[in-house]
């Protein structure tokens, strides 16, 4: 079935969700550019991974269910896998930064970089 045959009440919410998801991912990526320290930047991409991806996946479920004429919900697995993998990378980055005593961390490294004075004793990080 082509996209033209998709009923409006499916196409409209799906389109809105796609736009919302795209905007969230865009703002998250913009954060990488705008925030000035490593520790601030680490928070930005999470937006695209959570709500951004969620919006796109719901849109995908809506449109593929309508196109296939039956419920298509295996996108739920993508949500699950994102949820259990992306925090691991974030935590790994965070701990690597703590371990290195990240302060200047590229970019401006302004006042916020002082937060990089590790709050954690280094020997416990190994």
């Amino acid at each position: 079935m082509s996209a033209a045959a998709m009923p409006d009440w499916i196409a409209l919410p799906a389109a809105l969700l796609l736009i919302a998801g795209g905007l969230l991912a865009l703002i998250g990526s913009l954060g990488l550019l705008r925030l000035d320290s490593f520790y601030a930047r680490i928070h930005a991409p999470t937006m695209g991974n959570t709500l951004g991806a969620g919006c796109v996946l719901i849109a995908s479920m809506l449109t593929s269910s309508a196109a296939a004429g039956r419920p298509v919900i295996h996108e739920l697995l993508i949500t699950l896998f994102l949820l259990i993998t992306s925090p691991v990378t974030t935590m790994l980055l965070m701990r690597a930064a703590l371990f290195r005593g990240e302060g200047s961390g590229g970019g401006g490294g302004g006042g916020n970089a002082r937060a990089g004075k590790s709050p954690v004793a280094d020997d416990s990080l190994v």
Partner: protein
Amino acid sequence: MTRKFPLMEALLLLMWLLVNESLAPHQWLLGLLFAVLVSRLARTLRPLAARPRRLGTALLLCWHVLCDVIRSNLAVGQIILGTVRQQPKVGFLKIPLALRDPHGLAALSIIITATPGTVFAHHDPRENVLTLHVLDLQDEATWLRVITQRYERPLMEIFE
């Protein structure tokens, strides 16, 4: 070790059926084989099994997390768009925990890190203190309350 319900097998079977998008008998059979083999393999890798209880509490926690994820997405978005004027005040926060179960702690770390604006930075197993990194550290008491009351308490009910 008394095992009541083969949770890991059930979830793996569900995953298999979802991936294949089919409820045909041969998929049940293949999925069952897959589930039994994989969970047996997983148990040799990690013998410590989680025994989650209280489905209702878990569902309520999922709902709270979903709401918080949506709310903090909007909050972080506002912070990023507002950085022209000023940078957010990042900072670390130490939170003493009562939760000891390793699976509960893993779930807590995923909840915290998956929520934009907070990252689970470190956990000291001896003193059971969590180091949290917050993007916009305005009100320390609120974060403390959210982590302990909203997340930690239900996780203790579920896993301990």
